[in-house]
């Protein structure tokens, strides 16, 4: 007992609690990363299809097939309260969340199944999961392939189907190339012509010659358009040619047009190697494809593209500005009360809520600057705004302002690590201040600048709130970079990974079905940001080690 009192009097229990606070923080971070990792990667893993004979509440039996997504224990009492009959004596019941797919037939993607009501389960070898353009996945059996209306007589139905799928995917690629490439280009040029004509009319310089030139150009484009549209129609009719005959688990037979099928796999036939292969296949599709079905299916390529482009553009603004400001503060400005005040102010800007930057960006950049630019240069497009609405350029500028303090602080830190002796040596050899700066100081401070830039990029990639006000959209009709002059369209709206997470997770009509995709997106974002930060930490450590010798 005495030992215990002494133990407490020493304060040892408190030390343990403090240690536990560290453990808890680590546990939270690691747990969160594991959670995102597991759920995010789960999105790509081909789950087996289970066929279940299930007794429904009205005693009737149904045949279901689907992928078990989740399972949990719930108390029998809660079930009874919600009106479900549960056998006496059982305290807990296990239930499964089955993704049954076939939303066009069942009306829902998911079903909760209670374990006691499951009569039998099996994993039939030939169950197929079809990924479709719409209505989510279809889970069932492949019966046959109908080519041009005729059922193919073949022993290897799966092989026929794969061959057909390859053809359809190729056609789809061609259609996409045509629609987004050539036809998109023609449309873009037609719109430019319309604006040009309007501009001429507004200036009063719409002479007959000018108008005739525009008209002939337009005719040319329209002919081109008609020709392309003919090609497109041809491709579409080819795409519509084939269909597959399938049955659902309950035996209902129906036909799926090949044009609606994106991909298919037979999870129950896959061995581990196949599954791993399919995992990477899925992961690649996720990164490289366009989204489908209001972003709840398909890939996230436009979001990745938008994020990267915005961040690059931001770096272009923030690096010179941040470095110049830091150099001024550290090397040129008189070190007095004023500089101290500025330094504190810059430091504090890092703590100003990001949404405030968004509000500023919207009011100043978009409405004030953008509105003036529209008045001056894009009058022919008014009242439709060009720069007077959120877009890539304003988003990048807003983010540059937001991350400016990060770069300034980090660069200043890098500059202050450089020993006086180096500057003095350079000046003593007759170099001017600028030469000293350019040839010795800045190169030595470059790791500091890099650290700042990397941290700024990581911050900008993860920040969403201000972007919501200055140009991010849930679905951008076109990428901000394409083959139409001037190639980089700074005024276009763009998609962003962080906003994608918010939008799909909270604003989409089918949150339950979209959830795995959100986890996968979150995983991608976390990987990018954690990597960037680890690199920044490494660079910084390297930096401090390099100058340790010089300081002493």
């Amino acid at each position: 007992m005495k030992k215990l009192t002494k133990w407490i009097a020493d304060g040892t229990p408190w030390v343990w609690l403090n240690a536990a606070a560290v453990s808890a923080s680590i546990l939270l971070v690691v747990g969160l990363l594991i959670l995102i990792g597991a759920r995010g990667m789960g999105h790509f893993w081909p789950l087996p299809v289970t066929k279940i004979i299930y007794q429904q509440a009205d005693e009737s039996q149904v045949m279901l097939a689907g992928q078990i997504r989740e399972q949990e224990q719930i108390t029998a009492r809660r079930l009874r309260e919600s009106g479900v009959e549960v056998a006496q004596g059982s305290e807990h019941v296990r239930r499964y969340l089955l993704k049954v797919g076939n939303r066009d037939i069942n009306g829902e993607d998911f079903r909760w199944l209670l374990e006691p009501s499951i009569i039998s389960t099996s994993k039939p070898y030939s169950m197929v999961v079809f990924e479709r353009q719409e209505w989510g996945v279809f889970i069932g059996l492949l019966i046959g392939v109908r080519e041009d209306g005729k059922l193919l007589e073949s022993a290897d139905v799966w092989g026929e189907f794969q061959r057909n799928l390859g053809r359809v995917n190729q056609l789809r690629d061609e259609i996409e190339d045509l629609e987004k490439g050539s036809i998109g280009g023609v449309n873009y040029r037609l719109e430019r012509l319309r604006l040009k004509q309007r501009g001429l009319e507004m200036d009063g310089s719409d002479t007959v010659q000018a108008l005739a030139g525009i008209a002939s150009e337009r005719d040319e484009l329209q002919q081109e358009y008609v020709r392309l549209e003919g090609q497109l129609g041809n491709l579409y009719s080819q795409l519509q040619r084939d269909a597959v005959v399938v049955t659902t688990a309950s035996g209902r037979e129906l036909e799926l047009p090949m044009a609606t099928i994106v991909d298919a796999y037979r999870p129950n036939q896959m061995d581990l190697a196949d599954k791993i292969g399919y995992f990477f296949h899925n992961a690649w599709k996720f990164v490289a494809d366009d989204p489908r079905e209001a972003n709840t299916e398909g890939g996230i390529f436009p979001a990745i593209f938008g994020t990267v482009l915005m961040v690059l553009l931001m770096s272009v603004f923030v690096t010179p500005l941040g470095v110049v400001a830091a150099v001024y503060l550290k090397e040129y400005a008189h070190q007095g009360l004023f500089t101290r005040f500025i330094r504190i102010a810059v430091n504090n800007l890092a703590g100003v809520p990001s949404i405030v930057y968004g509000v500023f960006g919207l009011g100043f950049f978009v409405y004030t600057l953008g509105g003036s630019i529209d008045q001056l240069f894009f009058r022919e497009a008014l009242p439709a705004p060009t720069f007077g609405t959120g877009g890539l350029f304003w988003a990048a500028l807003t983010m540059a302002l937001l991350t400016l303090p990060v770069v300034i602080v980090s660069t200043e830190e890098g500059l202050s690590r450089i020993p006086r002796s180096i500057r003095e040596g350079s000046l003593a050899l007759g170099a001017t201040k600028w030469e000293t700066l350019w040839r010795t100081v800045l190169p030595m401070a470059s790791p500091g600048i890099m650290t700042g830039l990397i941290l700024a990029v990581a911050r900008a990639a993860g920040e969403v709130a201000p972007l919501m006000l200055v140009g991010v959209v849930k679905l951008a009709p076109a990428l901000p970079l394409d083959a139409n002059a001037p190639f980089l369209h700074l005024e276009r709206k763009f998609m962003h990974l962080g906003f994608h997470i918010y939008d799909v997770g909270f604003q989409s009509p089918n949150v339950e079905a979209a959830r795995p995709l959100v986890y996968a997106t979150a995983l991608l974002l976390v990987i990018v940001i954690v990597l960037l930060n680890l690199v920044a930490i490494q660079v910084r450590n390297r930096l401090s080690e390099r100058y340790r010798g010089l300081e002493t």
Partner: protein
Amino acid sequence: MNSALKAGPAAIAPRSERFHKWRSRKDKLARGLIALGGFVVIAAVLLILFYLLYVVVPLFLSASMERSELGVRPQWQGERTAFLALEEQQQVALRVNFNAEAEFFKLDGLQIIESVSLAEKGQKVAVVAGNPGNGGLVAVAFENGKVRLFRHSYKTDFSLGVVLRQIVPSLDYPYGNDLYDLMPDGGITGLAVADSETALVIAAAADGGRVGLSWNEKEESFLSGEVTLQTTLRSMTADFSITAIAVSENHRWLYLGDDTGRVHFIAIDGMREMQAVQVSAVGISRMSMLLGGISVLAGDAGGQITQLFPVRDADNQYRLEIIRRFDAQQSAITEIVPEQRRKGFIALDASGNLAIYHSTAGRVVLQQQLSNGQPTAMALAPRASGLLLLNQNGGADFMRINNEHPEVSFASLWSKVWYENYSQPEYIWQSSASSNEFEPKFSLTPLAFGTLKASLYAMLFALPLALMGAAFTAYFMSPGLRRMVKPTIEVMAALPTVILGFLAGLWFAPYLEENLAGILALVLVIPAGLLVFAWFWTNAEGRFKALVPEGWEPLLLLPVLIVLVMISMQLAGPLQDLFFQGDLRTWLSREAGISYDQRNALVVGCAMGFAVIPTIFSIAEDAIYSVPKSLSDGSLALGATPWQTLVRVILPTASPGMFSAVMIGLGRAVGETMIVLMATGNTPIMDWNLFEGMRTLAANIAVEMPEAAMHSSHYRILFLAALVLFLFTFVVNTGAELIRQRLREKYSSL
């Protein structure tokens, strides 16, 4: 180079001189450019503050009025005006005189465009009343007691181009040309009309307390869409002398003002008086409905205006309540004109004093003595940006009104306001609705409250973990582990808040709802379990202890924590059976009467706490770590235990630094947007309940900013919210930074 060679050695000196000059010029240029760049960045920083101010300031600027004389029309001299109205473009106006002639005239030159006779010749007009809600509908009562309705409307004719566009007025009879025989004996003194989609009501008051009312139920034919009226006439005789009359837009109530200062509240259904409210000591001189037809404004002979509306009481009965009073004017109110787009109104008194009010804000926006004497009639433009006055000499004045944000006052932003259809004054944020007649509710109080609530719960979660963790990491932890822990915490700081918010909203919130008891039990189970474990570990055999060297305890505790969490989850079932009838969640709402939202303050507290832990941790750890070692060495040498040294010596020295860590963490929590946006229901309620949501200033901006029209009051108020956030975090961070700098100086002197 070539020229230098040709010139020979003699030219070398000037060349190097030139080179020197070039170098020094480059140096100067660089200095200039860098200074410029530096100033640009600093200016950009200041620009944020000034731009926010620039947008916010117009909210608090007072209104102004500019008079311009339109000239004199001699024919109007000495002729009384029964009714005056102004169209949207403020170019054409309508005047009705007592000879039943309606004249459309141009403001420019007071030139008559069109004149229409509203009755047979010789018929005199008694009273004319416009319908405030449906701007174009006007009722004219004649001296014989009959009433006619007409409508005035305007079209813009662009046939001569945009610059020469013409306003073309027209007058028609939307409900037919019939006369309503409201008062067979004549003598009408007051008239009111209310028109809506379901019914049309015309009410007239005459001498001797007579009231006649025409109730017209609208029936729309399904085939032709034509509206037919089912008319019934009602009447009553009051035992007081009626001085003013008004009808509510829902057609349920009639308001009569009398000469003793009472407003009588009369149910149209049955024409029975339900209540008489003593509004003032002197007689009511003028009454009008506010936009929306819910509030009635009663002006009295003493110049006071009272706003009243029916309020539903506990027994579901309506009672007429006095909502607020305006007493800017001193003489009898002769005219009250409501605005057609906002809840504001303009009143004129007998001494020619004009005042603009706003009802929700409860303020006098502008007051001005008219210089051209008492006008005979006035009309307000639909956008309330211009006022037309007719003077006794037959002349007209136009007043340009600059009154952009009457609805904003300090009181309407921060105090309780009694809104229409509410039973008492409340703090409400409800910024927009589909119709013009909606009363915008701009109380920032619930949002500020939500912000405080969210950050408070976040700090409750973050502070113990961050500060205790920082103390251990800085003082007890072995350097090897510290090198691993610090990057982990930095990674934690870098996690995008959108991901934290997403996990909080879609994973943690449902999980918490399922396992509420287990998670709440963690608060007790973890400390208790840890202490028990620590006690046994201290007394364990040496060879066990040797496995974990001193300073590596957090690693040892990781599995312990996981086990404790599992124990807590297992305990939850039996505990709930014992105390909460099996399920805490249902017990809360059923027995304790605490409502539970799935996305609540607890979820936000945990998620936002997670987001601020690294901020607080890093700064506090830095402050503790940089306490000079001599201090702790001295303490330990004098026989204090490590813990005693930490608590009595190290922490007091580092406390300013820890305080600034907490402040910076608070600043971060206050401005956090995405987590709150995703992990709460974003309902602007005022309740400390841990299990209900909130709406914060930042989340509110994110939700509403994209929809706010540029330069509207709503837009500027959202900027005000951003300015509040900016200033708050700026002040807090500056304070924290100053404290840290002072601390650093103190350390270096030690």
